[in-house]
Each structure stands twice: as structure tokens, then as C-alpha cells.
């Protein structure tokens, strides 16, 4: 496998692992927990480094997961005081954890070269060179094992507990009444998110991992009305962003992680504009169509009531219509033109009157 294939595959697996979880974080309105966890794992990583006496994947991951769970517990405890909402609780806990990590790093590892760029932006570009060795055998790039494991683990988690996650996300009260503890599921989801964050963080860094978890899922949220489709769509958008992001990074010779996250943002922007159900464009079009429809309906209804009040056939001039409906002349002109084009109106001796089609439409309106 070539180095570039390793980078591409690492990116795809990482994006899929992250975005699989995003759906439930968004629906539970706890998207920013990802940000909290990705920063709060720093003291855990340092503790792992101290305990293992050096860089060790498993010990580091365990330390980071421990720090993440501590963060989750503290946030939950603060929220439960009833004085702080979720956002404020997160805002208090994660900088404190990150600060603790920073202090630990400067106190104990002042001499060690610590690559802050790697922490902030990841080092997916070196994915090929970080190999996993077991008993002296080279098993290939470590990132593929880690990200592949995360995808498999997260998929298993979702498949096993899809029903429980759905129920606790939609209606925690009913879930609890049925005996599915929302708290147990909350902590399990947070644990899975912690491992995912720890794994993804080595590839794309502490800041960009949030985007991988949240943005693809938010994009899918705009495009579908089914939960299962949102989860699948989120993973697909994540994978697509990774592939197109890698291509973009090669084209512009820039950061791979940055380009991948940029592409998730592009996907979100496109969905926001062009989603058939909730996109800004389709909404604007719908709005305009409705307005046109209603003005024409209003016009023919007005002509209908004129006819009924004993002015049949003679027609109404633009000036009469404008005065009666209190419309500007331009609106009368364009609406009349549309009415003629749609066969609702015909020319009369003076102005316009209803065509047989238009009269039928008015009668239809009167019946409903």
C-alpha cells in the first residue's frame, strides 16, 4: 500500500467512525461534548505517558478515556445542580481539564519536544510511517488499525443499541419508565465517543475532530427525515468529504485534515442551500410560488364576486382591479398576465373577465 493510499484510507475510516456518532450527539443536543472531550483528554494523555514511561498507544488511550469520562461526569454533575445549562457546564469543565494538561506538560515535559501542531491539527500526513509492531512483526500502519477498529466498534455499538439510543434520544422519560436507563446509555455513548475522539485526534487533531463528528451528521439531518437514513447518510457524507478533501489537499498542496474538514463544511453549505425539504433555495421558491398562487386566487375570487354582484361579462379594468384590491399597478399587470397565460382570464370589452376555467376555479374555491 502506498503512503498516499494509507492517508486516504485513514481519512475515510476516521471520518466514518466520527460521523457515525454525530447523529445521536446532534439529536441529544450535546454536539459540543465532542469539543470538551477532545480538549479534556490532554491530561489523560500526559498521565498515560508518565505511567507507561513513554509513548504507548493503549496506555495513552486508557488515560485519555479516563480523562474524558471524568469530564463527562463533571459536566453532568454541574448540569444537575440546575444552576448551569449544558453549554455553561461544558465551558467550565473542559478549559479546566485542558489547562491541567498544559500545566502537566510544561511542568514535567519541558525538555521533551511536544509538537503542538500535531495536537491541534493532527498528523495524518505521517500515517504511513507510524507502524504497528507486534512481536517484531510490522503489521502495517497503526492508523489503519486504530481507525478500522473504531469503525467496527462504533458500527457494532449502533447496531446493538440502535433502539435504545433512539428511544433515549427521543423520549428519555418513556425510556426510563420502560427500564432503559438514559444515564447508562449517556455514559456508554460518551465512552464510545471518547475512544473515537482519542483515535481520531491523532489523525486530525483536537479542533478538527469536532467537525468530523458533527458536520456530516448535521448535513444528513437537513437531507432526511428518517433516523436510520441520517446515520447512514452521515457516514456516507463523512467518507465523501474525506475523499474529496484528500483530492483538494493534493491539488492545493495543503493540510489533509484541514481540507477534509473544509469539504464537510462545503457539504453542509450545499445541503443548507439545496436540500429539497428544508433548503433555503427550495423554501424561497416555495414561498414565491405560494405568493403567486395566492395573488392569482385572490384576483379571480374578486372577479367572481363582481360577476355575482351583477356586472357579468363587462370585465374589469386594471385601474378598477388595483383600486378594489389595493394593489400597485405593476402587481395587477403581472397577475393579470399570469391569469391570461394560465387560461383563467380572458380579454373583455373593457379589461378582463373570468374564462370558463377561471369561473370553475372560483366555484371550486367557494365550495371548500
Amino acid at each position: 500500500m502506498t503512503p498516499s493510499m494509507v492517508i486516504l484510507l485513514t481519512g475515510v475510516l476516521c471520518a466514518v467512525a466520527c460521523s457515525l456518532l454525530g447523529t445521536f450527539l446532534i439529536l441529544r443536543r450535546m454536539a459540543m461534548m465532542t469539543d470538551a472531550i477532545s480538549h479534556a483528554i490532554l491530561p489523560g494523555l500526559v498521565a498515560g505517558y508518565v505511567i507507561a514511561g513513554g509513548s504507548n498507544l493503549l496506555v495513552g488511550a486508557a488515560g485519555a478515556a479516563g480523562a474524558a469520562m471524568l469530564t463527562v461526569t463533571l459536566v453532568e454533575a454541574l448540569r444537575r445542580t440546575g444552576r448551569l445549562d449544558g453549554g455553561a457546564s461544558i465551558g467550565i469543565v473542559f478549559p479546566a481539564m485542558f489547562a491541567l494538561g498544559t500545566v502537566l506538560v510544561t511542568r514535567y515535559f519541558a525538555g521533551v519536544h511536544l509538537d503542538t501542531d500535531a495536537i491541534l491539527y493532527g498528523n495524518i500526513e505521517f500515517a504511513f510511517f507510524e507502524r504497528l509492531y507486534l512481536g517484531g512483526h510490522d503489521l502495517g500502519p497503526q492508523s489503519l488499525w486504530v481507525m478500522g477498529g473504531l469503525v467496527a466498534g462504533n458500527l457494532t455499538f449502533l447496531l446493538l443499541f440502535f433502539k435504545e439510543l433512539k428511544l433515549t434520544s427521543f423520549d428519555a422519560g418513556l425510556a426510563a419508565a420502560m427500564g432503559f436507563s438514559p444515564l447508562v446509555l449517556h455514559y456508554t455513548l460518551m465512552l464510545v465517543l471518547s475512544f473515537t475522539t482519542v483515535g481520531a485526534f491523532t489523525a486530525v487533531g483536537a479542533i478538527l475532530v469536532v467537525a468530523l463528528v458533527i458536520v456530516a451528521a448535521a448535513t444528513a439531518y437537513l437531507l432526511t427525515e428518517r433516523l436510520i437514513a441520517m446515520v447512514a447518510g452521515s457516514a456516507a457524507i463523512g467518507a465523501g468529504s474525506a475523499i474529496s478533501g484528500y483530492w483538494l489537499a493534493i491539488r492545493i498542496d495543503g493540510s489533509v485534515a484541514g481540507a477534509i474538514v473544509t469539504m464537510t463544511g462545503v457539504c453542509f453549505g450545499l445541503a443548507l442551500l439545496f436540500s429539497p425539504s428544508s433548503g433555503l433555495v427550495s423554501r424561497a421558491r416555495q414561498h414565491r410560488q405560494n405568493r403567486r398562487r395566492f395573488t392569482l386566487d385572490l384576483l379571480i375570487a374578486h372577479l367572481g364576486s363582481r360577476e355575482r354582484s351583477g356586472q357579468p361579462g363587462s370585465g374589469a379594468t386594471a385601474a378598477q382591479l388595483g383600486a378594489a384590491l389595493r394593489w400597485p399597478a405593476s402587481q395587477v399587470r403581472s397577475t393579470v398576465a399570469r391569469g391570461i397565460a394560465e387560461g383563467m382570464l380572458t380579454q373583455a370589452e373593457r379589461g378582463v373577465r373570468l374564462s370558463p376555467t377561471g369561473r370553475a376555479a372560483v366555484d371550486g374555491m367557494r365550495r371548500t
Partner: protein
Amino acid sequence: MTATLAPTPTAPLAAAVSRPDERAAAVAVRGLTVAYRDTPVLWNIDLDIPAGTLTAIIGPNGAGKSTLLKALLGLVPVAAGTAEILGGSLAARRRRIGYVPQRGSVDWQFPTNALDVVTMGTYGRLGWIRRPGRAERARARQSLEQVGLADFADRQISQLSGGQQQRVFLARALAQDADLYIMDEPFAGVDAQTERAIIDLLQTLRNQGKTVVCVHHDLETAPAYFDWLVLLNVRAIAAGPFASTFTADHLRATYGGALTLLRHRVGSGALS
């Protein structure tokens, strides 16, 4: 909740709590006290709701009506006291309780359709990990039919009207196949026609021998709808058969200062 809370309930009020009916109790509460921080929301409640009744829990805002339901379901921490459900502990009876929370307690933008929400009613019976299959979906469809929403199975829930959303919740409770139904304001924000359909359904359940307990707000409609009454204002003011419990004295004891409102309601013939 402006009443001062002496540690012991005053004698006349305690005496007003009715003796248990000879029928088996669907809900038996003893000395139940629930507090948020240092404020008791429910104080020393003793209560029996006989099986096979259609019961209204009535009281002013902040009386602890929803909290009482949540305490029965184990959703809020209980400071003191016990609640027995259908003659056993809550843990043993969970599967036999159907729950209709307040409609506003969930996010109706959630990406799902009516049938899927109703299918959630079958989750309790399935237990952990097992997924709903054909039988569960069939049960859900049947429940949707019972509430007159068969044609709305595939409708995204945000596109349902308030009354339809309320009926979806009701159908979900039906899919729980329960013996005791606990409902938090099932008539809130629905039109008269939907209200009629809902009460017909609840009365059908009662006639099948089920027990239905509702938080209810409308003193005008209550006498026509319910056959058992619990008047609550932090304490259990009175409980018993509807007609004999729905008295001006009890209502005054329950609503305290809101007497002008009461006089209007009593004057309009709400009281039998």
C-alpha cells in the same frame, strides 16, 4: 405551592383522604414525599387508586401532579415513602404500565415518522438489544388505527398537528399493552373533536378493566369524563369516587385563593 408546609399534615385534610375502596388498588402510595432541593413538591401522600377506574388528578399549577406521575414511574428521586403498582414493586410491574408524557416533553423535529414512534411502545417488552420486528410493527399499526391515524403511519412527526401528535402518544401507550395507563395532560392543546375521541378511547380502556390515571386541568369537563378523583395540592387533599369527592369544600381546600375562578366554575354547573 404557597401553602406553608408543617411537618405534620393538619387533621381535617388528612381525614379527607378517602379510605381504600374494596377493589384491588392499581396504585397504592404510602407516605410519599418528593422534594426538589429543599422545597417539598409532594408531601406525605397516602393514596389508593382502585383498578378499573378512570381517574383524574386535579390541582392547581405547582401542585405536584406531574411529579406524582413521575414518582409512580420512578422518574424522580423519592425522599420518603413507597408506591406500589398493581400490587407489586415498580421494577416488577414496569412492563404493565403505559406512559403518556406531556406532548411538549419531546422534540417533534426528531427524524422519524408516526409508525416508528408508536413502535417505541413495544420496546419495553422487547428488552435490551432485541429489535422490533414484524409483530411489533403490526401492533403499532393496529394502535394507530385505534386512534384513527392509520393513514398517517408514514407521516414525519413534525408534520402532524398537535392533536395528531397527542394521539400518536396515545397509540404508543396502547402499543405498550398495559394494565395501568399513566397520562400527563392527554387533553392539552387538542381540539374538541380530538378530545372527544381521546376520552372515548380512555373509557373503552376502562371498560376493558384497565386503569387509567390522567392529570387533568378542565374542571368543566372532568365530571363527565372521570369516575375517580384525586385532588392534589402538594398534599393529597381528597380522593375517592368522582361524584362524592368533587365538592365545593374539597375544591376550595385544593385551590385555596383561586376562589373567584371556582365560584365561576361552580356557578356554571360544573358541580353535581
